[in-house]
């Protein structure tokens, strides 16, 4: 629901067949690991900018608001994951 208008058409191209399998073997694990690292950074970033959304006063919200539009798609998952139990078994990346 939070897809940027211009991003709507270029949805995940889904690799399939042999190419998909090779990609899955050689790269998918790394891509997942990268994205996860990215996610942790994003969380930290959101906390630093929109922390007051969760009740941590960080900076004057005037500037947070300016960043808010770009963060909209992440807010739900960010909050969900922040309050979700994280566990040592979640850190395993296979």
């Amino acid at each position: 629901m939070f897809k940027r208008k211009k991003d709507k058409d270029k949805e995940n191209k889904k690799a399939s067949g042999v190419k998909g399998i090779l990609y899955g073997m050689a790269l998918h694990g790394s891509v997942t690991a990268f994205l996860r690292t990215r996610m942790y950074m994003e969380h930290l970033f959101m906390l630093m900018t929109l922390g007051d959304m969760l009740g941590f006063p960080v900076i004057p919200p005037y500037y947070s608001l300016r960043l808010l539009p770009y963060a909209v798609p992440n807010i739900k998952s960010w909050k969900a994951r922040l309050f979700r139990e994280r566990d040592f078994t979640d850190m395993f990346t296979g």
Partner: protein
Amino acid sequence: MSDVLSTPSLWVLGALIAYAFTYFVYSKWVDEKVWEVSADRTTPAHMYMDGVEFFPVSKSVLWGFQFKSIAALGPILGPFIAISYGWLPALIWIILGNMFIGWAHDYSSIMISVRNEGRSMGPLVYQYVGGDRPRTILLGYLLFYLLIISAVFIYLIALFWNVFPGTFLATVIVFIAALIVGQMLYKYQMNVYTVTIFAIIMIAIAVWVGAAVPWPPKDFLGPDYTMLTWSLILAVFLFFAALASMPTFITPMNFISAFPAIGGVIILIIGALLTPLTGISLGQPSIGKFDVLIGNIGPGPIFPVLFVSIACGAVSGWHSLVGSSTTAKQLDVEIDARPVGAGAMLTEGLLALSALAAYMIIPAGSDVFQKGKVAAFVTGAKELAAAYLGGEAMLPFWASFFALFLVIYAFTVQTLVTRYWRLVSGELFTGSLSFLGNKYIATIVGLLIPILFALSGSWLNLWIYFGGSNQLLAGLALFLTAIIVAKMKRPSGYVIGPAIFMLIVTISALGWETYLYAKKVMSYLQTGDVNVLFANPPLKNYPLAAFFMNVVFVVIGIILIGLGFLMAYYLFKSYSAARSEE
């Protein structure tokens, strides 16, 4: 016909038929009748889609990922121990284990997570097995498990470097190639195909150098210090690998290692199937001795050792970590769980069979089996490959290839484990123990303890500890599944049977191993002779230290068994409660 029967191919083919039955009939039944999967039920990948942790991935990609993540050295080296009992028991266990336990475990680990918002093992245990205590036990268990895996793999890599001269140089070339690949991908963001070609060329060079320059020679520092030196060199590599930023080393290393890994597996499987044409025949007896103790260091009785020796080839707890932590979060539709979970596991069964074939063709009485020589796999695998790829002239090349194959496989898994250890330490150690969570200290601890372990026992013993703890974890995951399925008011028979079976064999195996060490400790106390202990050089020269390490292994065995029992107790309680709920 008798010609075909004397080659491994028919057995591999027979197993294929059994796996096909498992995949198309049995697992389908479980999929439809127990889990009642539906393409319409929203998976966590869609429900929580964030593009980073949760996002749908096509089943081919996920299959590739799952297979790559679960196929490690277990199925390749495991048969080495199992074949002591003759190849037939090993073959039967690989077939039946996969049919009734292995796939069910992997598939279920994905399903329990998919049906529970993509939660991984820890939170699931917390939710279904009664809160914090079982989860803490699981965490404690995992810590020991990680240390033991590390001990096994560090020991093996050092051993490979030592017994296959030239492999070290080849490995270093691969490391350098990985660093370059990292720069190509990361800094210059070059096209993946270009990088792939570069990676394959570098691997070919590494294999060639490994074959052409067999240096340094075996035991180049003498029998006492060579292994220790190799272990420490390896520790340095691992230290940097575990601390380097992902894109500099780990990612490119995973990338580059995928090619020999995939290639090696395909070459092995085809080689095994082609044996009637290539004329390679069985060398090993179908039935061997059932209570093997070669001198001091045999694996032990067929029950329970056989069931833990072919680690990931039949069933493995490692897979539940992969399945529940990553795969389940990216499963596109529920109906993909079977091709991904069951499909990848059955393929791994095939890999185990092909590896077994490599051992089966080694002539009876060959000395490669003496005293735990890991060269056995390479000896068989190079024959299988050279028979249809290049003939005799290529034997040294294939020997170098499979030696490198083993090292790279072990190294990528070990980097992952060391890194995971570091992350878990960082999370776990707080307050006054927070120095243990420091990333440098955690990494050093995660490397030095395993080296100590590795030097103190033979790898056979370590391997059984590893197999035992790994399969015990599988038993726990199966048990957890049984609870969840029972709560759903669905028949849990397909998992509870295997769960109980796995708990019995693994606790027996750990018990056996602990007993062996305890016996060593006792006889040392009686005789004062260091030779009665499990100790490799240079530890042998320090009787007290050797004695101490043997005691440590007794303690670890007791801890693993204790934690396993405790978990089983909690699981059983929750399971009965779930069953009696109306």
